[in-house]
C-alpha cells in the first residue's frame, strides 16, 4: 500500500506485480479484520445461552472481494485516473470548470416547478393511496432534512460554527408543538412560529456561554447540550412522557378552514366529496414543508446579501479581522445560532404535526450527525448542493427500504433496511474522499461590480469557532 504515485514510465508488468502484491495484502488484512466478526456468528440458543457458529463462506467472500477490489484499484482504476488527469493537464483543462449549463443557472426554478408538480404526479401514477409512499416517505422525509440542513447551514456553512447538537432545537420545536397543542389546544399555525421563536430563544440561551469557545470545543459543548436536552426529555416523565413520548398530537389544518381529523365536520375529504384517505393530509403536509423550505431558502439568500450575512461569512473566514472592523462577533454568532435554531424549531413542530407522536428516540446524536453530514456533503453554504446531498443521502437510503427485489437475489432473510445506515455511513466516507468540499465547493459572491464570479472552494475557509 505504498503511497507513491504511479508514474507513466512504470511498465505494466511492474504495475501488475504491485497490484497483485497489494491485492494479497488487502486480502490478508481483510482476513484479520473480518475473521472474528464475519467468520464467526454469535447468537442465543433456545436456552438463551450465547453460542457461535462459523460462516466461512461469507468470510471468504469478504476477503476475496477486498483482495480483488484492491487489485483492481491499484492495477487498473488508479492508473486510469492518473492518466486522465495527466491528459487533462496537458490539454490545459482545469480540474474545476466554472462553466454553467442552462440547467445549473435555472436549477432553482426547475426544481421548484418539479416539486410543486410532484404530489399530483404521484397521485396520477399510483392512485391516491399509492401516492402515500412517494409523498410521505420520499417527499416529506427528504424535505424535512433539506430544511434542517439549510437551517444548520446558517450556523455551520455561513458562520463557520461547528454545531454537533443541532437536533436539540429540532426537539425543542417538536416538543413545543406537542405540549402546547396538547395543553392549550392551540393550532399548528399559531404554534409553528411560536416553536420557531422558542427554539431561537433556546439557541440564544445555549449559545451565549459557549460562543466564546473555539473550534472543536464548541463542537463538543454543542454535542453535550444536545444530549442534555434529549436526556431531560427522556427522564422528565411528568411533562414529556419520558421514553414513551407524547402521542395523539393534533394534526395541522388548512389554516383552520379544513381539518384532517376523521370525525371533524369540516373534514377535507368530506368537504370535497373525496374518499377518505390519509393521503390528503400527507399531500397537504408536503406543500407545508415545501413552503417552509422555500421560506428558509428565501431568508437565507436574503440574509447573505445583508450586513449580518456578510458578517457571518467574514466570521467564518477570520474572526480577529472581523473584530478589527468593528463587528461584535459574539452578537453575530448569536444571531447565526438563533436563526439556525429557529429553522430547526419550525422543522420540529412540523415533524410533530406530521408524526402525531414525538419521543426522545427521534432526537439522538445520529440525527445531528446526519444533518451535519448533509451540510458538509452538499458543500458548506451552498443551498443547492445541500438539497442535492439530502436527496442523495436521505432519498437514497429511503430507497433501500423499497428494494424488495433484492430478496430474490440474496434470499428471503435479506432485509435491505438493515443495511440502510451501513450504506449511509459508507456513502458519507466515500463522498468525502472524492469531494472533500462537498458537491458544490464554490461560493456565490453576495455583491459584484462587473460580473458575478463563483469563488473557488480552495479560497474559502471552514471557520474555527
Amino acid at each position, binding site marked *: 500500500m505504498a503511497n507513491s504515485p504511479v508514474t507513466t514510465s512504470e511498465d505494466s508488468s511492474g504495475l501488475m506485480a504491485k497490484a497483485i502484491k497489494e491485492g494479497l495484502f488487502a486480502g490478508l488484512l481483510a482476513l484479520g479484520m473480518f475473521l472474528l466478526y464475519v467468520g464467526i456468528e454469535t447468537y442465543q440458543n433456545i436456552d438463551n445461552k450465547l453460542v457461535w457458529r462459523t460462516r466461512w463462506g461469507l468470510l471468504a467472500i469478504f476477503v476475496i472481494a477486498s483482495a480483488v477490489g484492491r487489485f483492481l484499484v491499484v492495477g487498473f482504476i488508479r492508473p486510469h485516473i492518473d492518466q486522465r488527469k495527466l491528459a487533462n493537464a496537458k490539454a490545459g483543462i482545469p480540474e474545476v470548470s466554472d462553466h454553467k449549463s442552462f440547467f445549473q443557472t435555472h436549477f432553482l426554478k426547475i426544481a421548484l416547478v418539479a416539486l410543486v408538480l410532484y404530489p399530483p404526479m404521484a397521485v396520477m401514477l399510483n392512485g391516491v393511496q399509492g401516492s402515500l409512499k412517494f409523498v410521505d416517505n420520499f417527499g416529506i422525509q427528504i424535505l424535512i432534512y433539506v430544511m434542517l440542513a439549510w437551517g444548520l447551514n446558517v450556523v455551520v456553512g455561513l458562520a463557520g460554527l461547528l454545531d454537533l447538537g443541532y437536533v436539540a432545537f429540532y426537539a425543542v420545536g417538536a416538543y413545543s408543538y406537542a405540549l402546547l397543542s396538547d395543553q392549550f389546544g392551540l393550532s399548528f399555525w399559531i404554534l409553528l412560529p411560536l416553536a420557531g421563536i422558542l427554539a431561537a430563544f433556546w439557541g440564544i440561551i445555549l449559545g451565549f456561554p459557549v460562543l466564546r469557545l473555539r473550534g472543536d470545543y464548541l463542537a463538543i459543548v454543542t454535542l453535550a447540550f444536545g444530549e442534555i436536552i434529549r436526556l431531560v426529555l427522556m427522564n422528565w416523565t411528568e411533562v414529556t412522557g419520558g421514553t414513551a413520548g407524547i402521542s395523539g398530537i393534533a394534526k395541522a389544518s388548512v389554516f383552520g378552514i379544513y381539518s384532517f381529523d376523521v370525525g371533524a365536520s369540516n373534514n377535507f375529504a368530506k368537504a370535497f366529496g373525496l374518499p377518505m384517505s390519509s393521503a390528503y393530509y400527507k399531500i397537504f403536509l408536503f406543500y407545508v414543508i415545501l413552503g417552509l423550505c422555500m421560506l428558509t431558502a428565501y431568508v437565507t439568500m436574503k440574509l447573505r446579501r445583508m450586513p449580518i450575512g456578510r458578517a457571518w461569512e467574514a466570521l467564518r473566514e477570520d474572526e480577529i479581522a472581523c473584530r478589527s*472592523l468593528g463587528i461584535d462577533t459574539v452578537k453575530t454568532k448569536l444571531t447565526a445560532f438563533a436563526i439556525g435554531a429557529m429553522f430547526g424549531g419550525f422543522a420540529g413542530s412540523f415533524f410533530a404535526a406530521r408524526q402525531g407522536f414525538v419521543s426522545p428516540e427521534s432526537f439522538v446524536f445520529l440525527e445531528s450527525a446526519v444533518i451535519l453530514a448533509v451540510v458538509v456533503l452538499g458543500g458548506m453554504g451552498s443551498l443547492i448542493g445541500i438539497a442535492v446531498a439530502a436527496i442523495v443521502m436521505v432519498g437514497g437510503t429511503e430507497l433501500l427500504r423499497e428494494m424488495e427485489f433484492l430478496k430474490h437475489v440474496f434470499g428471503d432473510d435479506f432485509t435491505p433496511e438493515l443495511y440502510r445506515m451501513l450504506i449511509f455511513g459508507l456513502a458519507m466516507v466515500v463522498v468525502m474522499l472524492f469531494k472533500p468540499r462537498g458537491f458544490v465547493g464554490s461560493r456565490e459572491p453576495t455583491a459584484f461590480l462587473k460580473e458575478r464570479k463563483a469563488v473557488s472552494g480552495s479560497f474559502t475557509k471552514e471557520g474555527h469557532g
Partner: protein
Amino acid sequence: MTSGTQTMNQDTILNVEHLSMRFGGLMAINDLSFQVKRGDITALIGPNGAGKTTVFNCITGFYKPTMGMITMSQRGGDKFLLERLSDFDITKQAKVARTFQNIRLFGGLTVLENLLVAQHNKLMKASGYTVMGLLGLGSYKREAEAAIETARQWLERADLIDRADDPAGDLSYGAQRRLEIARAMCTGPELLCLDEPAAGLNPKESLALNVLLNGIRDETGTSILLIEHDMSVVMEISDHVVVLEYGQKICDGTPDHVKNDPKVIAAYLGVEDDEVEEIIHEELDGSAQ
C-alpha cells in the same frame, strides 16, 4: 478627564501615557508615553522584539494593558479611553482601524465583499438591524448602494478596481496589503494603525503604498500610526517617529532627528552599551567644542 489631559492639546489625536504590558514575567512594554498628532503620519520603529506590535494590540484592544492610559480624541471633541473599550468598540465607536502584520483578509470573499464587511455597522443601522432590510423597508437599499460606491472609490485609490470581483485570497501579496488598508479605511476611521504595511513588498509596490498612504492623509485627513522596519519608507513618509527598544521609548522626534540619534543608531546596529556611551560622549564633546 484625568491628569493626562493637560499635556494634550487640540492637535493630539492619540495620547499614550505610562503604558505597560506584562506577559507573565516579561515586561513587553515598560512605561511608554507618546502622542500622535492629528493629520500626521507617525511611525513606530524599533528592532525586532521591541514591543511595537504589542503597543498596537493595546491600542486596538486586542490586549488589555497592565497599566497606563490610551486616550483617543475625535475631531468632534469626543474622547475615548481605549483601554476600557473592547476591541470591536475601538473601531466602531472610537474610530481607530488597524491592519495586521500577517495580512488578515477574508480570503474566500471577493475584494468588494471585503470592503462591504468593513462597512458593517453603518449598514446594520441602515437595515434596521436586519429586520427592516429583510422586509424591504427603510433606507437599506440606498445605503447598500452607497456602500458599494464607497468601496469602489477605495478600490480605485488602491488600484484594485479590476480585481473587485475576484476572491481576496487570489490577490498578489502587495495587492493584499493595499486591500487590507482600503478595508480598514472603509470603517471610516480617524486614526489608522498599520502594522508593517511595507513588509515583503517589492520597490514598485512599496512606492504605490507610499502614494496610497500620503493620499489617505492628505485627502481624508485620517491620521496614521504605522509600525515599520523599512527605514526608507519611514523616513520618506512619516512626519514623526517614535523609537522603541526593549519596550521603552528611546527617541521621539522628526525623522531627521531620529536618524541622527546615537541611541537609535546603536539600537539598530546592535552596538554594545559602553560603545553607545562612547558615541554619546563623542557627540557631547563635539557639540561642546
